[in-house]
């Protein structure tokens, strides 16, 4: 616990370092927001005046200090594109990304864990082979392509699901399914590999010798140990939920943070890029802490490390 607290205490310092790195990296991007706003025909005088208006004429160091001063008060600046406060823009979008990403991971776990356990219990069977082939396909298919195919089949031809946008539960089905494919395949394979390893242990043999069925052996004894790496990976990936669904959100017209990031990079909206990136970094750091806590819970050896 003390180790976790030490890590948590270091968060502000890490965030400060990350904010400096992000600030420099964003401003090193080629492309001038003023030129992108004004369009190709705008003369240099307009571009210069816009830079002054947007505060981009200040030295980089001064811009960074100004940013830190505001960020300390919870103000991440104003969007260069529409003048809205960055925090408001992100807060509006965050629930959509968390809901979609959370649902996708829930789906992935609900299918991946039992699927992996089944494949391990029936290793070498047709069911195992079929599942392994399916995970290979699921992990290899481009999300973009699957999304368009799903839209064409279920929204355009069958009219079962809405095409895009965020609304009632039906709007979640296609994007969540598409987003869950990769983690589902990953979790299923990891569960299978972990369970296979555990099933060879002596205590499993003992459990079987006691007369427990293979399924009971797996669910009661093998899964608890086999799931440790799965839970760790899932916990680490939770940080990516904030801005990780860029393609899915773009194709499905989903008003999340990933799409906001893409649009902001396109128009070089520095304050928004910065806000989203810092939030994502914070998410990853918190997910790391969570993962460490989870590992410590599953593996007593890790508690004292």
């Amino acid at each position, binding site marked *: 616990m003390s180790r976790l607290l030490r890590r948590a205490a270091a968060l502000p310092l890490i965030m400060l370092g990350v904010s400096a790195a992000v600030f420099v990296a964003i401003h090193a*991007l*080629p*492309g*001038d927001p*003023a*030129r*992108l*706003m*004004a*369009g*190709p*025909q*705008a*003369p*240099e*005088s*307009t571009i210069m*005046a*816009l830079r*002054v*208006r947007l505060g981009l004429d200040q030295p980089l160091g001064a811009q960074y200090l100004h940013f830190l001063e505001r960020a300390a008060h919870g103000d991440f600046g104003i969007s260069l*594109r*529409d*003048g*809205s406060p960055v925090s408001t*823009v992100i807060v*509006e*979008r965050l629930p*959509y990304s968390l809901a979609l990403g959370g649902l996708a991971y829930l789906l992935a776990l609900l299918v991946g864990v039992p699927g992996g356990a089944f494949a391990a219990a029936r290793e070498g069977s047709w069911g195992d082979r079929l599942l392994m082939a399916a995970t290979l396909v699921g992990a290899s298919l481009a999300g973009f392509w699957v999304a*368009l195919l799903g*839209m*064409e089949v279920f*929204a*355009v031809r069958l*009219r079962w699901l*809405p*095409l*895009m*946008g*965020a609304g009632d539960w039906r709007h979640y089905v296609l994007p969540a399914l598409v987003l869950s494919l990769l983690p589902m395949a990953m979790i299923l394979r990891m569960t299978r590999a972990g369970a296979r390893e555990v099933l060879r242990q002596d205590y499993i043999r003992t459990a079987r010798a006691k007369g427990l069925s293979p399924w009971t052996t797996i669910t009661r004894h093998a899964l608890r140990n086999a799931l440790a790496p799965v839970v760790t990976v899932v916990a680490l990936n939770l940080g990516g939920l904030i801005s990780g669904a860029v393609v899915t959100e*773009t*194709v499905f*017209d*989903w*008003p*999340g943070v990933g*799409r*906001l990031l893409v*649009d902001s*990079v*396109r*128009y*070089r909206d520095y304050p928004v890029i910065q806000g989203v990136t810092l939030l994502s970094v914070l998410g990853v750091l918190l997910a790391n802490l969570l993962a460490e806590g989870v590992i410590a819970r599953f593996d007593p050896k890790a508690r004292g490390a």
Partner: protein
Amino acid sequence: MLRFTAGLVCVALLAPFAARAADDAPLTVMLSEPPRTMDPADQNATETASVLEPFYETLLKRDAQGTIQPGLATSWRPSADRLVWTFSIRPGVRFHDGAPCDAAAVTRSLQRLIDRKVALAGASVYRAVIASVRQDGEAVVVILARPYADFLSLVTLVQSAIVSPIAVEGGELSHRADGTGPFRFVSWRAGENVFATRNRGYWGVAPAIAAIDWRWSPEPSVLNMALQTGDADVVIPLAPVFGRVYAPGQSAAALATVKRQRSAALFWLALNTRLKPLDDARVRRALSLAIDRRALVTGLLDGFGAPACHALTPDVPDALPCGAGEDRARIDMARALLKEAGQEKGFSVSVVVQEPEEPIAEALQAMWRPLGVVLSIRRQEAGVWVQSAFAPPEEKAREETGMALTSWSAPYVSDLQLRPLYTTGNSAPHGANLGFYNNAEIDRMIDAAAQDNQPASRHETLLAIQSTLDRDAPIVPLFTRDTLYGVRNGISGIWAATEGSIRVVDARRAQAQ
């Protein structure tokens, strides 16, 4: 029989209500990108103009035929030297916030437009042309810095739309539209939509539809699917490849209709006139001659466009049309010119291009191969492209950037098509003369044409400009791309403007819907 008659009477009585119910459903319009702002003067994007047009009005406006009509100004008159323009302001008009849109408000809006301290992104041409604006009773007087023949066209553009002084003072115009248009702003959920409802206090003819729901997707196939499912009533632009999907006889034709508008969206190639061998006008002309523009339009646009052979687009009355055979490759003439320039063995050159325009560069690569010209394509993300294309001469020389491929739309105003691209003062990085073309005679002629109010002499000057630019070929015009848009069947009154924006305020649903 009695039942039948009673039924007919009921239908007749309820028909107006049924029609109203149909029009009460919002009209959903899908674009390829979100609006960039709600401030009409602070943008130059076609999609943003589409969204803003129902909220705002300009002093004058263009109808679907391109004719200038009264807008917020009921009449206008120039001084003898055409330097002072007096606009009579329509009485009784109010902004959506309830403030009167009188001469004082119009004056303040135009003064803000030309205020250098406000630095609005879409206002540069107004700052260059307008010296000052003042109120004169119920009229507004605009004093020009120099004569400008296309001045009336400038006050039809959405950038000059009249904005509410209350919204300006409140500092909320960038994210909350406030004008006098037939629709009033309700909300802008940045990731989702812009919603507008009918302005019940509108001074003109009230719109038939109750609301507009603007949505967007960057993916062309999603736009097409949205039109088919009914998620969108109107989509713009529709990629040319989907034009055939709605052709008569196809199943999708029962759902929607594809419409086509000739557009001023010119695609062109800027040649670096400081880089060898492109510093030789003969080489540049040879490259232009070797391009089969008709094949570009057929192959890349499925025929939805027109070859562009000269500097001005066809919507400008003084534009030179493509002559016989000019839109076809003339390889022999190109070879002769290259030989004359000592480049008969060909050369290598690079072009910077954004991802959507890469197929054009690939087609040019093939068309120039017979001349021995090897074109290397540098595909770049939009921001990186801007950096490369607007780089100063020494940086372009260091990067060996020979060409930049791009497009834009500046309809009706010849000065807006010529000045940014060809005048010395607009050489990159200061402006869009990306190839650093420098010709004092062209500078003088462009100034003369902009200021000349006599149509005949102006026409002569514009023809001379186009001929000189054909000879010098600092820019190679390729084609203009038509605006394709899809409209669900049963909806009428939608049209696209020449610059590519969509006009939906007169939309109406058929009663059957």
